[in-house]
C-alpha cells in the first residue's frame, strides 16, 4: 500500500512539473491574477504537492547542510545535570545559565512553535511530517545523515508563528532566535573536546565526526547578533560568511580568509529585518523587503543563502540542488500557496463595524492603493446581501502591480543599503548563475501587499512601528520604545483597536 502511494506520488510529481514558471526579470503578473498555484497544477496535484512542500518547510531537506548537531548525544547531554561540558559551554558564552536544560527547552528558547492539533482546519491544518503529531516543534529537523541523526532547523523556524495559541504557516515568527543560536555556537563549539563529548554523551565515532564537521564548517560562518528580538541578521550572515571563503565561483573554504575575513561593512552597519510573510509571494515578481532579488526562483535563492550561513560546501550543495529539484519545486508550490489568517478566525465578526470599514475602504483607495494594491471586498459584490457576517468581510480579489515596485518613503535605509555589501559576491557564484538568481541593490522598499496585515505587527521591514495607530501618527510623535513580545493571548498581548502591541499611548484615545 505504502509503495503504491509512493509510486503514485512519484508519478504525480513527474507529470506535475511540466510547466516552469517565468522566473526571469521580465516576468509580469496580470493585475487581478496571482501565482498561488505557481506550477499550474490540477486541483488534486496541488493538494498533494503543497502538502509535501509544507513538510520540507518544516523538516529541512538539505542532507549536505553544513551544521548538524548530533541529536542522540545532545539528548544524553541534557540527561547529565551539572556536567563538565555544560560548565565549559557556560564559561565560553559568558553566562551563568542559558535556561536550556532539555531538547524541548532548546526549542522554546529558540522561539519555535508547536504543531497544531489534529482537529485544526483550513490554513491551520499543518501536515505532520511523519503522519502523526510530532513531539518536536515546527522547524526542528532531525535529519538522517551518514553520520547518524543530526538536528538542524528548517524554514518554518523563521517563517511560522504562534498567533494567540494557533500556529500559522508563512507568518513572521516574532520571537525567533536563530541568529543567536549561531552566535552562541560560534562561541563554544570550537572548544568542545571530542573525547570529553564522546565520554559524556555516548556518541558513536560517526557522531563525533559530525561534531568535528560542524566545528570545521562554523569557521566559514560569520555572525552578527540581531539588535533586538524579532529581527533577523541572516543577510549580514550571508555577507560575513562569504567574506570568510575564497573568491572563486564556488566560494571554496579558505583557511586564510577564515582567519582574516575580508572587510565587510555589515560587521558594524545594521541591516536587520524581519522574516517576510509567505502569502505575498504569489503577487510579487521580485523578492526581499527591498525587492533586490530581481530574477530567479526565490526558494532556490533562500536555500543558497541559508546554506552560506551554515558553512556548506557549495559544490555539494549544487549537486544536492540538481538532484532535488522536485523537492524545491514542492516547497515553492507550498510557499506560494500560503494564505493569511483572517481577523474573524480569532475575533467575532461583529467586532468589525461594516460601515466604518467601508468608509475606510474609500480612504484606502485614495491614499494607499497606488502603492499597496487594490482589494475588492465581498461586500461590494452583487450577491453581498446573501453572505454571512464572516463571508461579507472577505477579500475576493487583489490587484497588485504587474512588476513589483520599490519606493523610498523615508523609512530606515540600513537594510536596503546593506544589500550593496554582498550583491556582487553572490551574483558571481556559479550556483547563482546556474539558478539564474540576480541581486541588485535598490533604494527603498517594496510596498508589500497587505493581506493579513493585522497579524503582521510590529510594522515595517525593521519592526519599528508597534501598531497601526502608530503608523498613522506623525513620525516625531510615534512610540519610541516598546517590548517585542510573543502573541500568546489575544486580550493581554494584543491591542485590537490600534492593532498591534498594547502600549500606553493611543493617539485615537481622548487622552492623546
Amino acid at each position, binding site marked *: 500500500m505504502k509503495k503504491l502511494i509512493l509510486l503514485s506520488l512519484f508519478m504525480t510529481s513527474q507529470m506535475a512539473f511540466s510547466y516552469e514558471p517565468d522566473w526571469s526579470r521580465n516576468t509580469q503578473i496580470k493585475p487581478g491574477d496571482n501565482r498561488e498555484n505557481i506550477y499550474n497544477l490540477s486541483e488534486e496535484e496541488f493538494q498533494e504537492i503543497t502538502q509535501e512542500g509544507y513538510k520540507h518547510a518544516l523538516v529541512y531537506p538539505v542532507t549536505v547542510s553544513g551544521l548538524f548537531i548530533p541529536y542522540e548525544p545532545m539528548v544524553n547531554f541534557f540527561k547529565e545535570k551539572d556536567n563538565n561540558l555544560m560548565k565549559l559551554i557556560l564559561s565560553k558564552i559568558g553566562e551563568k545559565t542559558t535556561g536550556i536544560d532539555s531538547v524541548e527547552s532548546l526549542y522554546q528558547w529558540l522561539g519555535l512553535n508547536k504543531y497544531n492539533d489534529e482537529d485544526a482546519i483550513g490554513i491551520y491544518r499543518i501536515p505532520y511530517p511523519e503522519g502523526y503529531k510530532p513531539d518536536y516543534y515546527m522547524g526542528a529537523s532531525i535529519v538522517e545523515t551518514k553520520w547518524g541523526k543530526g538536528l538542524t532547523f528548517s524554514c518554518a523556524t523563521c517563517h511560522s508563528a504562534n498567533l494567540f495559541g494557533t500556529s500559522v504557516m508563512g507568518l513572521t515568527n516574532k520571537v525567533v532566535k536563530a541568529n543567536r543560536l549561531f552566535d552562541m555556537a560560534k562561541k563554544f563549539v570550537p572548544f568542545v573536546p571530542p573525547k570529553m563529548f564522546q565520554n559524556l554523551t555516548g556518541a558513536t565515532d560517526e557522531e563525533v565526526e559530525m561534531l568535528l564537521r560542524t566545528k570545521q564548517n562554523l569557521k566559514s560562518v560569520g555572525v552578527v547578533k540581531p539588535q533586538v528580538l524579532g529581527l533577523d541578521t541572516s543577510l549580514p550572515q550571508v555577507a560575513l560568511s562569504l567574506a570568510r571563503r575564497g573568491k572563486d565561483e564556488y566560494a571554496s573554504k579558505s583557511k586564510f580568509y577564515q582567519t582574516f575575513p575580508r572587510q565587510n561593512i555589515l560587521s558594524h552597519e545594521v541591516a536587520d529585518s524581519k522574516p517576510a510573510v509567505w502569502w505575498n509571494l504569489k503577487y510579487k515578481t521580485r523578492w526581499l523587503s527591498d525587492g533586490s532579488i530581481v530574477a530567479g526562483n526565490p526558494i532556490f535563492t533562500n536555500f543558497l543563502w541559508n546554506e552560506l550561513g551554515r558553512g556548506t560546501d557549495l559544490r555539494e550543495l549544487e549537486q544536492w540542488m540538481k538532484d532535488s529539484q522536485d523537492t524545491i519545486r514542492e516547497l515553492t508550490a507550498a510557499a506560494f500557496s500560503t494564505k493569511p489568517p483572517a*481577523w474573524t478566525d480569532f475575533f467575532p465578526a461583529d467586532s468589525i463595524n461594516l460601515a466604518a470599514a467601508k468608509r*475606510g475602504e474609500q480612504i484606502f483607495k485614495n491614499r494607499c492603493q497606488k502603492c499597496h494594491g487594490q482589494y475588492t471586498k465581498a461586500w461590494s459584490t452583487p450577491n453581498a446581501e446573501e453572505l454571512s457576517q464572516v463571508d461579507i468581510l472577505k477579500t475576493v480579489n487583489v490587484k497588485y502591480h504587474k512588476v513589483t515596485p520599490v519606493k523610498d518613503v*523615508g523609512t530606515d535605509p540600513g537594510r536596503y543599503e546593506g544589500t550593496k555589501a554582498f550583491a556582487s559576491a553572490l551574483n558571481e557564484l556559479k550556483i547563482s548563475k546556474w539558478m539564474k538568481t540576480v541581486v541588485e541593490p535598490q533604494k527603498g522598499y517594496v510596498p508589500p501587499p497587505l493581506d493579513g496585515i493585522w497579524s503582521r505587527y510590529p510594522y515595517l521591514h525593521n519592526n519599528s512601528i508597534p501598531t497601526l495607530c502608530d503608523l498613522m501618527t506623525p513620525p516625531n510623535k510615534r512610540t*519610541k520604545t516598546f517590548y517585542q513580545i510573543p502573541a500568546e493571548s489575544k486580550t493581554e498581548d494584543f491591542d485590537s483597536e490600534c492593532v498591534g502591541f498594547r502600549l500606553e499611548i493611543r493617539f485615537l484615545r481622548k487622552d492623546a
Partner: protein
Amino acid sequence: MCRFPVGNKVPKKRRLKEAFFNTSKKGLRNTGHYRRIFTDKNGNELLTKENKKDLIMFLKTL
C-alpha cells in the same frame, strides 16, 4: 500626557533586555511613511482621527 515608559502593560517577566525595541538605535529608526501619504506635499494633514480609525477598521478585514 505620559509618554514613557511605554510597554507598562508588559508583565515583568517579558520585559527582557533582548526584547527592548529602541527606535533611536541605528537601523531601528521609525521614520518615514508619513509625508505625502498622510499629508499633502506641504505637510498638511489630510486625514482626521475618525478617518484613521475607519482606515484601521478596513485594514483589519484584509
